[in-house]
């Protein structure tokens, strides 16, 4: 069988930075194969993807050695336009990929560029829209689509060009699990019908459900493993890759020790944030209705739910970025309306998902000083607090950090800096909006660890799509769906609520099943590594299998 993609001993060095992003990498993808490419952030996954779809060297200036063949022909000397008829690319964020104002014009975009006759374009649009189940959306404006709908429209826009291979960049990064997995089911179907797919993703466990033919695991631009899933599960570093819980149990002896973040003992009774029959929204648009909740001053609360369900709206009310049109919101027992946004900054430190939305100063020092200066603090106080928060977020080790332009930091460091910006205003509660979206396990663990361990912070409330993150780090989980709070329970209780996992944009993971099957108490749960060790020891002592699940 002719390989659709062949990468032979390829190395890539970006000319702009001089950095070698890929070294001596090989990859062969044939029809009917689904290849999973994984590895920590900065390992070269995106560079490999750009090499395959032709963006390197056509859009990125880079020195490439080795050979890349697409559909049996070298990419050198071919145009991106030519390669695009063989390789279709799904970007991580469909909002940047979708360029048409309506769904119909979006799907037509590729065939129009190829200069196909109108009749053929119309025929293809109908065919592909029926295939991915979006016929009812054809006349809708793309600006009004949900995240899940947008992703399916973007995929239709790729399929309509009839590629032989699709490359999918982090399909789970931006959307709720249910929406992302709908896309993955379509990718699998494409492969089953004779196509090929290369999927780049950190969250390995979810992709394993779709039975990849091979896994390419990379670190520092080099291939560390290439082969079938079984071998990968035996070698993958558990601290870097999110593996199925059954694999953690099987490899319990190798799992790294984890230090649970310190937890403040509960004691005070006045809720930090309380909603009394609150309707929350923006202007005349109500997003959440009839919210009755009390979040404690020393709690760790995770908010789960599908895209657009109202998770962010719920917690934005804490800093008055949204207001209650009915009912009321109270902070430390007093109506929030009596407070100003600035005074709330010393109660709640709100960290937005995209660090780029906060960073504007020439140096990290100036960036850190912006909030405290607005609070009227003295330069000495600001300098002292800046040093403290850089230490708390482990950024103090970076050379000349205070004089560095914030945007020259790596993405992970920028995220930690945004936590530092919030901490610099000495909040008692930290609110994190999608703290780990699109980040690898090690970065996630580091980031959430720093946030939870911050000395002055009594409580942390965080919004996430990552069910396992919520189970691992929260003491209480709130699920929001279709404008209402549909569940409010401890992680263990939530894992046992079976009806919940088929709706609310959630996806049951192997950790959920393990908690349900093996933890009897209803409180918070141990770190997955500790739970895996515990179950492994129990299995050895009982000589009976004690795994939560087995990988498919």
């Amino acid at each position: 069988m002719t390989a659709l993609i062949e990468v032979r001993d390829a190395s890539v060095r970006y000319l702009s930075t001089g950095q070698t992003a890929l070294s001596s990498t090989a990859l062969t993808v044939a029809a009917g194969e689904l290849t999973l490419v994984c590895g920590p952030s900065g390992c070269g996954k995106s560079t490999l993807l750009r090499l395959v779809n032709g963006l390197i060297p056509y859009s990125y200036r880079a020195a490439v050695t080795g050979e890349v063949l697409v559909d049996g022909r070298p990419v050198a000397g071919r145009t991106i336009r030519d390669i695009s008829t063989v390789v279709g690319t799904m970007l991580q964020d469909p909002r940047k990929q979708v360029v048409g104002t309506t769904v119909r014009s979006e799907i037509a975009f590729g065939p129009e560029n190829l200069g196909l006759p109108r009749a053929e374009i119309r025929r293809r649009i109908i065919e592909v829209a029926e295939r991915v189940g979006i016929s009812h959306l054809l006349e809708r404006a793309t600006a009004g689509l949900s995240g899940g709908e947008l992703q399916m429209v973007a995929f239709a826009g790729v399929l309509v060009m009839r590629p032989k291979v699709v490359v999918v960049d982090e399909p789970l990064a931006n959307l709720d699990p249910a929406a992302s997995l709908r896309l993955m089911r379509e990718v699998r179907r494409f492969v089953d019908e004779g196509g090929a797919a290369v999927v780049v993703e950190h969250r390995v466990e979810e992709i394993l459900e779709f039975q990849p033919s091979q896994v390419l695991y990379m670190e520092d631009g080099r291939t560390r493993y290439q082969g079938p899933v079984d071998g990968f599960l035996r070698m993958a570093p558990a601290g870097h890759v999110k593996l199925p819980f059954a694999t953690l149990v099987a490899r319990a002896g190798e799992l790294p020790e984890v230090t649970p973040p310190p937890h403040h003992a509960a004691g005070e009774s006045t809720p930090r944030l309380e909603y009394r029959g609150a309707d929350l929204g923006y202007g005349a648009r109500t997003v959440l209705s009839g919210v009755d909740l009390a979040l404690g001053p020393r709690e760790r609360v995770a908010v789960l739910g599908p895209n657009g369900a109202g998770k962010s709206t719920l917690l934005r009310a804490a800093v008055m970025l949204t207001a209650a049109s009915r009912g009321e919101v109270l902070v430390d027992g007093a109506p929030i309306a009596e407070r100003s946004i600035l005074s709330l900054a010393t109660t709640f430190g709100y960290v937005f998902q995209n660090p780029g939305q906060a960073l504007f100063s020439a140096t990290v020092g100036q960036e850190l000083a912006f909030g405290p200066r607005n609070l009227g603090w003295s330069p000495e106080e600001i300098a002292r607090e800046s040093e403290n928060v850089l230490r708390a977020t482990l950024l103090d080790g970076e050379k000349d950090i205070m004089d560095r332009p914030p945007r020259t930091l790596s993405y992970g460091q920028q995220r930690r800096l945004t936590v530092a910006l919030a901490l610099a205003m000495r909040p008692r509660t930290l609110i994190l909006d999608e703290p780990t979206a699109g980040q690898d396990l090690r970065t996630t663990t580091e980031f959430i660890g720093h946030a939870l361990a911050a000395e002055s912070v009594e409580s942390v409330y965080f919004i996430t799509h990552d069910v396992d993150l919520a189970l691992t780090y929260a003491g209480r989980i709130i699920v929001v769906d279709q404008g209402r709070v549909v569940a409010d329970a401890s992680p263990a209780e939530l894992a046992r609520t079976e009806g919940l996992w088929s709706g609310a944009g959630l996806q049951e993971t192997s950790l959920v099943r393990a908690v349900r099957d093996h933890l009897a108490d209803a409180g918070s749960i141990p770190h997955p590594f500790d739970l895996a060790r515990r179950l492994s020891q129990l299995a050895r002592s009982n000589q009976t299998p004690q795994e939560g699940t087995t990988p498919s």
Partner: protein
Amino acid sequence: MDVTPRYLGAGSFLSRRDPRVLLLVPVLYLVAVAGIADLRAVLLCAVAALLYYRAAGIPWRGVRANWAFMLTFTTILVVVNSILTSTDTRAGGNSEVLFTIPVTHSAITWTTLSYAAAVFTRYVTLAMVGFPVAFNIAPSDLGVAFARLGLSQRLAYGVDLTFRFLPSTWASLHETIDAQRIRGYEHSRSRNPVKRLIALKPVVVPVTVNALIDAEDTVNAMDLRGFGGRHRTWMRELAFDRADVLILAGFCAVAAAMVAARFLGLTGAVWVP
């Protein structure tokens, strides 16, 4: 504020027209009314503009705020330029001073008022023929309309992209303002324009940098779908029908007549009753 393009005139006579008609009519109308000082001639053109606007079927409720802004802005402009400063007095005839503006001491004559009315009518009617461009062309038709008018494929699709990304850029702006507000950012109340501009930095810098980063991804996504080739099919077919031709011919005739009248010196002077 919703910045999503509003297709308010959907289903009306004008929205059924070839979008190129809606783009060409304002140009022809501008040619017709430019430089006309005679109120009677402007009012004659205004009849055509009013009929055209009526055919657009734009619901009043949908554009009430736009008209309020337009009329306020135009009134201020006309009052300042034509009445307070009395810039144009190109007329003979009746120059009797009706009254004097107290502070500026501008003498108001029939000539001044007639000229101000002509300018005001010109601006308002230009808005009448311009509104259908915003509210009667389906957003997905704009790119192809410009392309068929001779604009390059890239520029024409750029128009489409502007409308596509306007709502998300607006959302990004609001998200950035929110992110900075919780750090104590407030709009500057200073009267010094330089200080006001500098105070915008916490919002302008992140929005601009993020837009540039996002634009790079979008350009890559477009390249990966074959954009930029010499030949491109526009799925939307455009063809002038009889009504389109009649409308264009009508406005061409108005433009030609007004240009001719101007050259003959019939409309250059301010009409004084």
